[in-house]
C-alpha cells in the first residue's frame, strides 16, 4: 500500500515487541508513519494503490465492528485452557454425583442440538465444537460416560464430513466441511464403539439391578457402582443415559453401514435406522423426568431449550472458536432447540431409510426417477450426500456398473454390455461422463441443481450434434451396408435418440424446478407452460422413437418366444411412462392455452413494463434452452404466434383436461403396485378436474367478462396450477 504522506518514519527505537533485524529484512515500527499519514488525509480521501483499488477495498473488513469482524474478542477467555482454568468445563461436572449425571445429560443434549444445527448449514466450529469437553477430549478420560459419548460423536462427525466431502454435492454448502483445524480425529477413535459398549453394558447392568431391587424391595445395590447417590432416581437416570448412548451407537452404525461399497451395508443400516428412531423416542420420554429434576432456572420458553431438562449446559463457549473462522462477516448461529433437533434427526433418519430401500436397480430411468422422487421432500445436505455416494462410486453406478453398460442397457442392447469397443467409443465415454454429472447434479440442492442442469443442456446438445454429424459422415453415403456396419449404424442411431431424449428430460426437469423454486410469476405461466408443452412433445417423440428402434432390433433378431414376455413387460412400462408424460403435456398445453385466452380476451396475466417487453422475459427465462437449441427452431415468435391466436372456442373444443381424465384410468391400472406413481396420477386428475370446471365457468361467463377474477394456485400439484375462478 502506498500512503500519500511524505513524512518519513521517525528515528525512534522500536518497541520491544518488534523483532531485531536479521538477514531476511529490517523490522521497523510503522505506527508513527501511519499516524502522520492519517493527519495528512482529509475527510473523504482514500489511500490508493495499484493493488488496493476501490473494488479490492470492499473485501476489507472493519476490525472491531461486531457485524463484520468474526474474530472479534467476545469471549471472556483468550484460550480454551484459560476457560478450563476458570472452571468453565469441570471434570467431574459436579462433586454432587446426582448433579454430575444431570449435567452430563445436559451436555449430551446440547451437543445433539448443536449437531443438528451443524447439519442444517452452520460451521462445526460454531456448533458441536463450542463444547470445551470436545475441544480437549483427553480431559474427559476419567469421566467414562462423557468420554464415550464425546468420542463416538466426534468419530461420527468425522465420518459424515468425509461422506459430504466425497459427494461434493455441497457446492454452496461448503461451510459444512470446513473444520478449521479442530481436533476432529484422535488415535483411539476407532475404538469408540468398544468404549461406548462397555459403558453401555455397565449402565444397563445397573438398570437391571435397579429393577431387581425394586422387586425385592432391598435398600442397597450390592456389588454394583451406582450412577449417583439417590437410589430413587437411579433407574430413571440409567434410562435417560442409556437411550442417549444407544442413539449414538446406532447412528454411528448407520453412517458406517451406508458408507460400505456397492451398497452392501444398506440392509443392516435400515435396522440401525429403526433402532435410532426407537432411542429417539425414549429420549423424548425421558424429558419429563429430567425436567422434574432440574432445579435451575429454565431457559426462556420451552421452544428454545437446547436440552431436555431445560437447563443451560456447562462446558460450552460460543466465542472461543470465533478466531478459527474464515475472515468473513460472522454468520449468526442460533442453535436449534432440543425438540427441533429431535425432529431433524427423525427426518434425517427417514431420508436415510429411503436411500437404504434402493433396490440398486441398474436401469438408468429408474435411477433418475428414484433421485427425483427423493428430492421431492427437499432433503438436507447430509442425506443427499449419502445418496450421491451410493449412486456414484469409483465412477461406476453403485460402484459396480460401468456407465457405458448402463447406457447400453438403456438402449436395450444387451449384446454390447461389456463390449470393449462400445465402452471405448468416444461418444459413449463422453455420454457416460454426462450421466455421472447428471446424477451428481440431481443430488444437489434444488436451487443449485437447476442452474447446473441448465448449463449441462449445452453439453447434451453438443454431443447430439456431434453424434448426428458422425452418423451422417459414416453412414450417410453408404448404400449397400454390410450386416455388421448395419448393426453399428443402428447403435449410433439409438445412441443419438437416447441422447436427445435425455436432453429433453433435463430441460423438462429444469423447467419444472422453476416452479419449486418460485421463479415464475403468474404473468409468465403462459410462456412457461407453452415451453413445457414444446419440450414434452419432443421428449415423448424421442421416447417413442427409442422404443420403436428397440422393437425393431429385437424383431430383426427373431427373438425366441421366452424373450417376448420380457419385451412386452418392457413395452408396457414404456407406454405407461409415455402416457404419464402425455398427461403432463396435456396439462401444460391446456394451462398455457387457458392463460393465453385470458390474456387475449380479458387483458389479464399480461406483463406491462416500462423498460422491456414480454419478449425479453421470454429470452431470459429460456436463455439456456434456446442457446442449447432444446428444441431447435424455437423463438419468442413461435410462442407469440400460438398464444396470440388462442381463443376460448378452440380451448373448449380441444378440452385437454377432459382428455386427461380419459387417460388416467388406464394409468392407474398400470401403476397399481406403485403407490407413489398412483398418487401422482391422482394429483394430475385433481388438477385436470379443477381446471375443467374452471374452464366451463370461464366459458359460460365469457372470458372477457369484467367481473371475472381468475387466479392460479398450486394446491394439488407443485408444477401444475389450478385455476380459481371468482366473480366480483
Amino acid at each position, binding site marked *: 500500500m502506498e500512503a500519500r504522506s511524505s513524512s518519513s518514519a521517525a528515528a525512534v527505537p522500536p518497541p520491544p515487541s518488534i523483532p531485531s533485524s536479521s538477514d531476511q529484512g529490517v523490522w521497523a515500527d510503522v505506527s508513527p508513519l501511519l499516524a502522520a499519514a492519517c493527519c495528512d488525509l482529509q475527510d473523504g480521501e482514500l489511500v490508493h494503490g495499484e493493488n488496493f483499488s*476501490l473494488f479490492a*477495498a470492499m473485501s476489507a473488513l472493519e476490525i472491531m465492528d461486531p457485524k463484520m469482524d468474526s474474530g472479534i474478542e467476545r469471549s471472556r477467555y483468550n484460550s480454551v485452557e484459560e476457560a478450563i482454568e476458570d472452571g468453565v468445563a469441570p471434570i467431574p461436572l459436579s462433586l454432587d454425583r446426582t448433579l454430575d449425571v444431570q449435567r452430563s445429560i445436559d451436555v449430551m443434549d446440547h451437543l445433539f442440538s448443536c449437531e443438528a444445527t451443524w447439519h442444517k448449514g452452520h460451521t462445526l466450529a460454531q456448533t458441536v465444537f463450542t463444547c470445551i469437553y470436545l475441544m480437549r477430549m483427553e480431559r474427559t478420560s476419567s469421566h467414562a460416560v462423557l468420554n464415550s459419548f464425546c468420542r463416538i460423536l466426534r468419530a461420527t462427525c468425522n465420518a459424515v464430513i468425509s461422506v459430504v466431502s466425497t459427494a461434493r454435492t455441497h457446492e454452496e454448502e461448503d461451510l459444512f466441511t470446513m473444520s478449521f483445524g479442530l481436533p476432529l480425529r484422535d488415535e483411539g477413535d476407532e475404538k469408540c464403539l468398544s468404549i461406548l459398549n462397555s459403558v453401555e453394558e455397565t449402565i444397563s447392568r445397573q438398570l437391571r439391578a435397579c429393577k431387581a431391587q425394586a422387586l425385592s424391595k432391598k435398600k442397597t445395590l450390592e456389588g454394583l457402582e451406582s450412577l449417583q447417590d439417590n437410589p430413587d432416581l437411579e433407574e430413571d437416570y440409567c434410562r435417560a443415559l442409556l437411550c442417549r448412548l444407544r442413539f449414538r451407537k446406532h447412528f454411528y452404525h448407520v453412517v458406517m453401514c451406508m458408507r460400505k461399497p456397492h451398497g452392501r451395508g444398506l440392509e443392516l443400516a435400515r435396522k440401525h435406522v429403526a433402532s435410532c428412531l426407537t432411542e429417539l423416542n425414549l429420549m423424548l420420554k425421558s424429558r419429563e423426568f429430567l425436567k422434574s429434576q432440574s432445579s435451575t432456572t429454565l431457559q426462556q420458553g420451552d421452544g428454545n431449550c437446547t436440552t431436555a431438562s431445560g437447563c443451560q449446559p456447562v462446558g460450552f463457549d460460543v466465542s472461543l472458536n470465533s478466531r478459527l473462522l474464515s475472515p468473513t*462477516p460472522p454468520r449468526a448461529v442460533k442453535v436449534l432447540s432440543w425438540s427441533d433437533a429431535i425432529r431433524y434427526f427423525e427426518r434425517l433418519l427417514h431420508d436415510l431409510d429411503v436411500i437404504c430401500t434402493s433396490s440398486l436397480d441398474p436401469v438408468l430411468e429408474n435411477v433418475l426417477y428414484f433421485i427425483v422422487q427423493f428430492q421431492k421432500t427437499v432433503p438436507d445436505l447430509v442425506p443427499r450426500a449419502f445418496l450421491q455416494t451410493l449412486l456414484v462410486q469409483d465412477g461406476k453406478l453403485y460402484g459396480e456398473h460401468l456407465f457405458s453398460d448402463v447406457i447400453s442397457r438403456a438402449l436395450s442392447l444387451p449384446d454390447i454390455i461389456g463390449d470393449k469397443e462400445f465402452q471405448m467409443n468416444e461418444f459413449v465415454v463422453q455420454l457416460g461422463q454426462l450421466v455421472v454429472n447428471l446424477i451428481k447434479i440431481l443430488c444437489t440442492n434444488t*436451487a443449485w441443481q437447476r442452474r447446473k442442469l441448465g448449463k449441462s443442456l449445452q453439453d447434451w446438445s453438443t454431443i447430439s450434434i456431434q453424434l448426428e454429424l458422425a452418423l451422417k459422415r459414416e453412414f450417410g453415403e453408404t448404400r449397400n451396408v454390410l450386416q455388421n456396419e448395419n448393426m453399428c449404424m443402428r447403435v449410433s442411431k439409438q445412441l443419438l435418440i437416447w441422447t436427445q431424449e435425455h436432453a429433453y428430460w433435463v430441460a423438462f426437469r429444469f423447467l419444472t424446478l422453476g416452479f419449486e423454486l418460485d*421463479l415464475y410469476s403468474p404473468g409468465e405461466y403462459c410462456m412457461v407452460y407453452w415451453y413445457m408443452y414444446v419440450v414434452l412433445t419432443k421428449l415423448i417423440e424421442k421416447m417413442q422413437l427409442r422404443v420403436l428402434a428397440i422393437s425393431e432390433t429385437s424383431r430383426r433378431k427373431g427373438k425366441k418366444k421366452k424373450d417376448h414376455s420380457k419385451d412386452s413387460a418392457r413395452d408396457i412400462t414404456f407406454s405407461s411412462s409415455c402416457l404419464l408424460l402425455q398427461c403432463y403435456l396435456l396439462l401444460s398445453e391446456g394451462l398455457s392455452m387457458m392463460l393465453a385466452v385470458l390474456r387475449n380476451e380479458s387483458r389479464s396475466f399480461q406483463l406491462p413494463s416500462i*423498460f422491456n417487453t414480454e419478449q*425479453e*422475459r421470454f429470452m431470459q427465462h429460456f436463455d439456456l434452452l434456446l442457446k442449447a437449441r432444446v428444441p431447435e427452431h424455437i423463438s419468442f415468435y413461435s410462442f407469440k*404466434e400460438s398464444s396470440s391466436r*388462442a381463443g376460448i372456442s378452440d380451448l373448449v373444443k380441444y378440452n385437454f383436461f377432459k382428455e386427461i381424465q380419459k387417460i388416467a384410468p388406464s394409468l392407474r391400472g398400470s401403476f397399481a403396485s406403485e403407490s407413489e406413481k398412483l398418487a401422482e396420477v391422482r394429483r394430475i386428475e385433481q388438477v385436470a378436474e379443477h381446471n375443467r370446471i374452471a374452464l366451463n365457468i370461464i366459458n359460460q361467463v365469457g372470458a372477457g367478462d369484467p367481473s371475472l377474477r381468475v387466479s392460479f394456485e398450486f394446491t394439488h400439484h407443485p408444477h401444475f396450477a389450478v385455476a380459481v375462478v371468482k366473480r366480483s
Partner: protein
Amino acid sequence: MSSAAASAGGGSGSEVSGGTEERGEIAYVSYGGEQHLPLVMSLVDEELSEPYSIFTYRYFVYLWPQLTFLAFDATDGKCVGTVVCKMGEHRGAFRGYIAMLVVLKPYRGRGIATELVTRSIRVMMDSGCEEVTLEAEVTNKGALALYGRLGFIRAKRLYRYYLNGVDAFRLKLLFPRPDPGLPPMMIGNDTDDQKMDSPYL
C-alpha cells in the same frame, strides 16, 4: 461484489392509502458528494441485513455517483430513501447492478422506491447497459413485487445467500435490443407434422 440486499418496502405503489396523514412532497437528488455519504450509510445500515464497510459505500458512490439517488422529505429535509448502484462489464455484457435500495418504513407504499430505482435504471439504459441485475431476499415480497412491475424476472435462486441464512433471488431485467436481430421465425414444418390436430402451436 459481495451480497447486497435490496429492501424495497411497501411495494404496492401509489395505490396504498396514506390515511389522513398529510403527505409532504418528496425531492429526489442525485448523489452530490461526501455530505450525502453519511445519509446513505445510516439508511442502509439501519434497514438492510448485510453489513457493509465504508469502503463498499465509497466503491459505489465514487465510481458511479450518477447511479446513486437520494429521496428527501421536502417538509423537513429528512433523507428517507436511497438507491446505490454500479455498472460494468460482466461476462461479455455491459450490466447494471442495483446494490442497495432503501426507503424508511413510514414512507413506504408511496412509490418512492420505484421512483429511485427507475431513475437509476434509466441512467443505466442511457449509458448502454444491456441488462440490470440485483439480489433480493426471497421473503421480501415488497421488493419482489416492485421489481416484477419494472420487468425483472427471477432468474435464479441462490441458496442461503445472505449471512442470516435466507435464500436470495437473482433478479434480472433485460433491455430490448435496438436491433431486432433475426426476422420472426416460425416453427419448422417438421414440428407441424407431429401435432396436426392441435390448435396450439
